[in-house]
């Protein structure tokens, strides 16, 4: 079954994924994403009744003990945005 993805669909997904797209990009992605989704439709051919995937690892109950260890130095935390930090905080324009 062919899966149609409209430009509007792509724009909605882009909003959810927080990615800026040009109209031109949206048109291209609509086609490509449609093709990809059409391809993966074939998953429906597999009978998976009563089948459940639990986890990639057989491990269970892997925990850390509650013991604090040193954190990074503040300068290392901020090193990638030094120009955007004030008094140890990262500063951005307001979130409202």
């Amino acid at each position, binding site marked *: 079954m062919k899966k149609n993805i409209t430009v509007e669909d792509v724009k909605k997904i882009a909003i959810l994924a*927080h990615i800026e797209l040009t109209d031109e990009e949206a048109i291209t992605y609509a086609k490509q994403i449609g093709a990809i989704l059409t391809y993966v439709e074939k998953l429906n051919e597999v009978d998976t009744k009563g089948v459940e995937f639990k986890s990639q690892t057989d491990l269970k109950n892997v*925990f850390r003990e509650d013991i*604090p260890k040193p954190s990074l130095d503040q300068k290392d935390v901020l090193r990638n945005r030094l120009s955007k930090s004030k008094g140890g905080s990262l500063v951005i324009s307001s979130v409202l």
Partner: protein
Amino acid sequence: MESNYELIIGLEVHVQSKTKSKMFCSCDSNYFNTPPNTHVCPVCFGLPGALPVPNRRAVELCIKTSLALNCEISKDTKFDRKNYFYPDLPKGFQISQYDKPIGLNGNLEIETVSGLKRIGITRVHQEEDTGKSIHNNGETFLDFNKSGVPLIEIVSEPDFRTKEEVTTYCKRLRQIVRYLKISNADMERGEMRFELNMSLRKAGETSLPNYKVEVKNIASISVLEKVIDYEIRRQSEILDQGETPKQETRGLIDMTGETTSQRSKENEADYRYFPEPDIPLIEISDEMISKIRKELVELPQQKKERYIKDFGIEASNAETIISDVQTYKEFETLVKNTDKAVIFEVAKWYTGEYFALQNNSIKNSNFSPSSLVELVTLVTEKKITRANAKDALIESYTTGKTIEEIIKEKGYEVVSDMGQIEKVVDTIMSSNPKAVDDARKNPNAAMFLVGQAMRELKGQADAQSVKDLIMSKLK
């Protein structure tokens, strides 16, 4: 509240777990009042490549909370990712629990005007906190010290019908997590936060309303009460006009409780939950549960009921004593070796005179709270009068002198030699023949004689005994 409508409220309460380290990394979780971004590592700062490893103690505390709230424990549980973007959410997702919360289908009983009411607990789950955003003058300051601190989320059923029920529930919940050392639940430090789901329905209706208003990030019980008041007004005005309030998330404007509609775009949340692939599944064994169950202690409601039932403590006194851990512990230490019959009286004094002293006077370091029990015992044994006992308590509290010293100094010792009392009574009766006559006709008039005798005895006798003696002599 407007009598036309009934309140329907469900609550989500976030409690910050009392662990030493964060939920998924080893950063010190004691971040309060520390310089920004000093309790931060690749994991809680969301650096590329960093991986979460869950804190065993935090999971245990979540199980403990679930047990205390009578939940079923999910034997097979897991963490999930809740995806959304926000600057103080460093990974672009929060690790939480989606379809297999640690605790399910619990309840908490609260006292209401019409007796005990069972509030349903939908779920109790474990998650992590975000960083902190401080908005100032068009700028937002981001501090990630709080990022990754463990939070327990307790979600109730929409079972609340009055604001008072909500308040009572929140206070009980706070007591419970404190009793169990799950959280300090200090609201000033943001360790306990509330999310309100509220709607109104016409009185007499039984189905849930077709809308729900959500208010997030409420930092205290008092603000929560104000929000409820505000929303009652706002929603009932809309309903009065025959309209339905919009289903939405509203933001808190300030501490007055006023709320405002948030941009609708933000409301279209699609969190795209899926199992956190970086953390193996969790299987909660019966051994683990019974080990944690052993950490449970008597909870506030049970304690209150026991105080009332076993010691006859008055309900209001019992409520005061159980209100916090330090208080009930001090009280229980005080009455440990005390005669059962005296305990209810100690409770009265403890929550009355003693609390008043604590609030109004400066304690001498030599004062021992056991003096209180000593005094109350003397009072019940009628060895000191109530009034003198009060004075003695104040004296002891402020000077540190022992009760024995004070009684000796002030001559508070009650006259218990009945011979001496009889002598005084006889003298009073013979020198007041008119009063004796009056008292024979009207027993109430005997109080004059009692008063005279007590004055003669300098108040150091038990008034009841004096009265009894006079009455017997009048016959």
